[in-house]
């Protein structure tokens, strides 16, 4: 990974995984502000099914690391109620595929309350959830649904691709007075990277990050595909100079950074694990067209899931999941 330009406010760094980065972000914010609490299914003693909150119960109380019944609508709704009355809940929804269960409280309460009430309430809630295929978990445990939340007004949606982004953005999310959906691709929990150690390190929501600079083609990627794109760029480095951007924030979207890159390279690949039609890709492409039309040398390429669910069988799953090879192929079509 090339140096992260947004971490310059930091004294030292430490190598850690995305999982650790998220855990430390929560630990620091729990310690910093007693209004912060975490709730979700098996987040306490069990440590979360992906071990993300492992160890937090030992440092905080059961009251603040709160195991819930299997009632996503109920406890996410309770999170909204708590946020409107002075708390700062972090709500874990184990798999993003379960977000449908709690969609009503998301769309009509969390997202709308501030607006409907004429701005007279804060909604400082963070929803953490896991996305993505790659572990044979089949169609109901592998989805990437973040486009819904990027599209729906009143929500903030972030989807980090590196440990530093995960930590810096989660801390910003928890401190934010707006509802933030924080999408964790479950295949990158083990991915390591340098993360600033300063407990005041945060990253601004709404800024994309140039993870590798290049001249010929820009790859705008999210989550797992940031790493895959960096791999693709490295592999192609003899033939073509590829710039890789971690989009990080889906809404708000950092139009400025992606357009600046387009102006330099003239060619763009958008790589995101959403289903292709009406996915994140389309908005990115449209922003580029609207703001950099005359810089485009060719239509941007989309890399994503080909409008299927994620099938169980490994041979099928691999077919539909985008990876470095797909990014490479897309770059080659453009270059």
């Amino acid at each position, binding site marked *: 990974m090339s140096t992260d330009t947004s971490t310059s406010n930091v004294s030292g760094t430490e190598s850690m995984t995305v999982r650790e980065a998220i855990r430390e972000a929560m630990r620091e914010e729990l310690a910093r502000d007693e209004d912060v609490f975490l709730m979700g299914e098996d987040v306490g003693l069990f440590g979360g099914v992906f071990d993300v909150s492992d160890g937090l119960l030992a440092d905080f109380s059961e009251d603040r690391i709160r195991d819930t019944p299997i009632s996503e609508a*109920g406890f996410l709704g309770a999170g909204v*109620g708590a946020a409107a009355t002075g708390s700062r809940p972090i709500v874990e929804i184990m798999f993003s595929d379960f977000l449908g269960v709690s969609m009503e409280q998301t769309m009509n309460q969390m997202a709308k309350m501030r607006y409907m009430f004429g701005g007279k*309430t804060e909604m400082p809630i963070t929803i953490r959830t896991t996305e993505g295929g790659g572990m044979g978990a089949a169609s109901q445990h592998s989805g990437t649904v973040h486009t819904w939340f990027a599209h729906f007004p009143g929500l903030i949606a972030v989807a980090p691709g590196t440990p530093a982004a995960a930590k810096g953005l989660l801390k910003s999310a928890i401190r934010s007075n707006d509802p933030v959906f924080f999408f964790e691709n479950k295949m990158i929990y083990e991915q390591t990277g340098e993360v600033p150690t300063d407990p005041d390190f945060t990253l601004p929501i709404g800024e994309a990050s140039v993870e590798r600079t290049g001249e010929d083609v820009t790859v705008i990627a999210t989550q797992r595909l940031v790493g895959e794109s960096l791999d693709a760029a490295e592999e192609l480095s003899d033939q073509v100079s590829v710039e890789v951007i971690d989009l990080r924030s889906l809404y708000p979207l950092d139009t400025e950074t992606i357009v600046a890159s387009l102006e330099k390279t003239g060619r763009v690949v958008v790589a995101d694990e959403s289903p292709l039609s009406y996915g994140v890709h389309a908005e990115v492409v449209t922003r580029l067209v*609207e703001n950099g039309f005359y810089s485009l040398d060719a239509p941007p390429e989309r890399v994503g899931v080909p409008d299927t669910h994620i099938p169980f069988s490994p041979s099928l799953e691999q077919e539909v999941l985008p990876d470095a090879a797909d990014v490479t192929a897309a770059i080659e079509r453009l270059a």
Partner: protein
Amino acid sequence: MVTIDIETDDGQREILRRMMLIRAFDNEAGDRFADGEIPGFVHLYIGEEAVGVGACSALEPDDYITSTHRGHGHCIAKGLETDKMMAELYGKREGYCNGKGGSMHIADVDAGMLGANGIVGAGPPLATGAALSAAQKGEDRVALAFFGDGAVAQGQVHEAINLASTWGLPAIFLVENNKFGEGTPVEKQHNLENLSETAEAYDIPGFTVNGMDVTAVYEAVEAARERAVNGDGPTFIEADTYRYRGHFEGDHQPYRDDDDIEAWQRRCPIDAFANRLVDAGVLTEDEVDELRAAAEAEIEDAAAFAENATDPDPSEAYEDMYDVSVPELSTYAGGSLRADGGSTTDQ
């Protein structure tokens, strides 16, 4: 200390006054809606005044309530100001929500009123959350959720009560059984004699009270509040009541007869309580009339206030979406879809 002490003469007068205020408010809202002055939908609380006032009077001022699409009564019972309410119905900037919410979304979070709600069943999880934050902060506050008989069929209501029961939270779940969910009678929504039997699924106390009797509602909520703050968990209360008007104004009501309405009108909660106060010598008939006239006058003033209040400026449509400033919104507010604000549109 309860919001209104029903043991005192002053308290009883205030309870009567608030019920009258609701009646006057909703009569006025119905008329103004019919005149085309109030846009959208209005759902009137007429006939159900004893429930909202009985419940909110027995709460303490800092307690939270969540409301429904039929929220005017809850607002007035919780002490909200009728002029700012009416201005909100008119969509004016002086309204509780600066005109952004309307009848179905009046809220005053500072007053513990967490919002009318256009989604059936959405209030209880919010109340559970408010009760949770109160418990976590060690505050002596309870959260009461009003919801309808129809809402009992909503899954999130079930989840909210189960959570509150399992966690022993200071919450009160109050069903206003007004016999219909829109045009569908309660018997076609549930296979239950009394909706309070629902409480058994959570092993919490469940009661059905006479929702036309403000005292009965008051006492039930007072006891439930006591349990809640003592750490004994939530209570489920069903108030047996009736709505006198259509589901919304304009409802042609094919689902019931005038006779049914009239039978319930003879049990009018306001008249019943007023008569009781006259019988007990707390008020004279004249004083009752004066109270009613004062309530009506207040509402006339509220309507005048609303009428003369300000239409929001179109630019305000882009405000209040987020705490932070979001480039998309400032771009659109500037009249452009371009990040650079290049071209302009009238939106």
